[in-house]
Every structure is written in structure tokens, then in C-alpha cells.
């Protein structure tokens, strides 16, 4: 697989963007998706500057027809789908359980859970007939531990962990692998929004054993490894990349 075809959701910022660059540097053909045309085209230009073939497909992962379309466009353009990185996610609205509503729940779950479900569904539609493929979902350290004031986000990432394991079992033996990478505190716009103030961010970092944030590239490099043939026996696995956070 000298030049695998890679689809990345939530590719325009943070970890998704770093993953797009990491795959482009390895010579992959890359389909980046997200909700903003201008940033999407800018990213494509950057990836092409690295010598990669790249296209942008505007996609809202909450919509079945959008997810179907991005997979169809990928196969139409490149003839196959080898690697899918389901990274699109939202931090949702922080707050106590007593402050949550059906709306705040749906805002988070529609992207983080339904989005990953629909993405896997359509990616598997392309990968199963090939008899090969590698799906990497992106959850969070909060996919395996709780956090006061973040119940909805935590629940959504626990759901991603559960869906990953179930999907891996469903397709085990077909040549398709499904795994999940669980980043800890990573230096992204999402973390800045999630922590809201510099003081909150510093307080969170102080709880991380390695006492610093991850760079998006440090997460992307693990995603690229898990996606690659170097991890060919790995399926149904959750890989923490969190500076020791959940080991503590």
C-alpha cells in the first residue's frame, strides 16, 4: 500500500488537520472533510504543497446523506478507501448534570456518537467488498474515565469506545480493522473552548502526569501508526495517548 487512500472527518483543525498532514507526508492520497469550504480548500492546497493528492468534500457527519456522499466521492475519485479517521467531534457544553437538556445532549451526541456510527457504516460499505481497510476512531481519555462537569462529553466518548469494539468484532476476519485512539489534553482550539480560561487550562495541565499538553502531531502520529500495516494484528483496541492521564 504505497499510497493508501485516507478519509479524515473533522479534518480542518486540531488533531484532524495534523493527521491529514501526517498522512500527506507519508505519500497518502487524502480526502479531508469538514463543514467549512474555505478552510477545506486552504488545507487541500497545503497538502498538495507536500506533494500529496488531496480533495476536500464538505461534510456534516450528523447527516447520513453527507457521510454517504463523502465516501462515494472518495471511491469515485480514488477507486478505493483504505484508511478512515473518524475524528469529527465537539466538546459540547460543559455543565452539571442538573443543567443539561435534551438539546445539550443532542448537540454533543449527534456529532460525537451518531457521526461516528454513520461514518463507520458508510466506510464499511466501501471497505468490506475490498476485503481490507483500517478505521481509526478518535475518542478521548474521557472515553474511559469520568469528569465532573463534563457528563455529556464523557458519555459520548464512552459510546465511541463501545461502538469501536462492537464494530471490530462485527468485521473481524474480513480484513478490516477498527480501533480507537484516546487523546488526553491536546493543544487544540477544542481544548481552549473546553477549558474556557487560561487558568482552567493550566489547572488541567497540572493534573497530567507529564505536566504538558500534547501537540496535535503527537496524536496524529499514533493515529497513522494504528491505521498502518505495522499494526496489522491490532483490532478492537483503544490506545491512550494522554501523557499518563488515565494510568494515574
Amino acid at each position, binding site marked *: 500500500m504505497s499510497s493508501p487512500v485516507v478519509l479524515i472527518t473533522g479534518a480542518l483543525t486540531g488533531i484532524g488537520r495534523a493527521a491529514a498532514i501526517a498522512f500527506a507526508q507519508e505519500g497518502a492520497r487524502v480526502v479531508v472533510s469538514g463543514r467549512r469550504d474555505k478552510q477545506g480548500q486552504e488545507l487541500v492546497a497545503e497538502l498538495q504543497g507536500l506533494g500529496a493528492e488531496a480533495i476536500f468534500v464538505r461534510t456534516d457527519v450528523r447527516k447520513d446523506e453527507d457521510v454517504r456522499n463523502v465516501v462515494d466521492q472518495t471511491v469515485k475519485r480514488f477507486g478505493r478507501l483504505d484508511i478512515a479517521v473518524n475524528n469529527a467531534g465537539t466538546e459540547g457544553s460543559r455543565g452539571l448534570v442538573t*443543567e*443539561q*437538556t*435534551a438539546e445539550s*445532549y443532542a448537540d454533543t451526541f449527534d456529532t460525537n456518537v*451518531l457521526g461516528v456510527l454513520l461514518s463507520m457504516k458508510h466506510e464499511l*460499505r466501501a471497505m468490506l467488498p475490498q476485503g481490507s481497510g483500517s478505521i481509526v476512531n478518535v475518542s478521548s481519555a474521557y472515553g474511559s474515565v469520568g469528569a465532573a462537569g463534563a457528563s455529556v462529553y464523557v*458519555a459520548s466518548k464512552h*459510546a465511541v469506545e463501545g461502538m469501536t469494539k462492537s464494530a471490530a468484532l462485527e468485521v473481524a476476519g474480513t480484513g478490516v480493522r477498527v480501533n480507537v485512539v484516546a487523546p488526553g489534553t491536546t493543544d487544540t482550539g477544542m481544548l481552549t473552548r473546553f477549558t474556557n480560561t487560561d487558568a482552567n487550562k493550566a489547572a488541567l495541565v497540572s493534573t497530567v502526569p507529564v505536566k504538558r499538553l500534547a501537540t496535535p502531531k503527537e496524536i496524529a502520529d499514533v493515529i497513522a501508526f494504528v491505521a498502518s500495516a505495522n499494526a496489522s494484528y491490532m483490532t478492537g483496541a483503544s490506545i491512550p495517548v494522554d501523557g499518563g492521564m488515565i494510568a494515574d
Partner: protein
Amino acid sequence: MSDQVVLITGALTGIGRATAIAFAREGAKIVVSGRHDKEGQKLVIKLRTFGAEAEFVRADVRQERDIEKLVDYALSCFSRLDVAVNNAGTEGKPGPFTDQTAETYAATFDTNVLGTLLSMKR
């Protein structure tokens, strides 16, 4: 545990029903909830045969209004709430990922996740 006020969602069958009976035998005051009036009233009668005070409130845990009314009713009957068992759940529609849709997803998550979230909130 006697005299504790206990609220149980999904109380009409299975684990929820067994839990209601277990609390009734220990002398708790019980509010059972579920979506079927007839079964709810039958369960209340059964719980009272154990000497327990029991009430049924029709509630769909997917509806925040229903849960608010349920908790308010428990408070109006017994003036406190000591134990809440958020048991309402559905097995959803088993099937491979490639058969799932936004609708099958919502049918399961609305009850199992949103329902528990709203119940804890109230």
C-alpha cells in the same frame, strides 16, 4: 432502609419490577413509573399487598416534562426522594453497523442515555 422514598423508572417489568418488589418488602415508600397505565396500576396493588405505600406515575424517560412531573409527584406524595433507580432501558435493534440508521440510533440512545441523563438531572 425502611421508610425510604424510592423512585424506579422502567419499573413495570424485569429488573425494575423485581427491584420495586424488593424495596416494598423492606417497607419503602415507592413510586413506580413506566409507559403502561394498566400494568402500573396492577403493580401498585401488588406492592401494597406487601404493606408498602406505592404510587404509579406514567412517564416516558425520553420526555423531560414527564420526568419533571414524576419527581414532583414523588415529592408531593412523600415530601422527599431518597433512592432513585434509573432502570428504564431498551435493547434497541440488534444488527450490524451497516444496517443502522439515524433512527435506530435514536430509538436506543434516547431511552438508554438521554433518559438516564434527564432522570439524574431531576
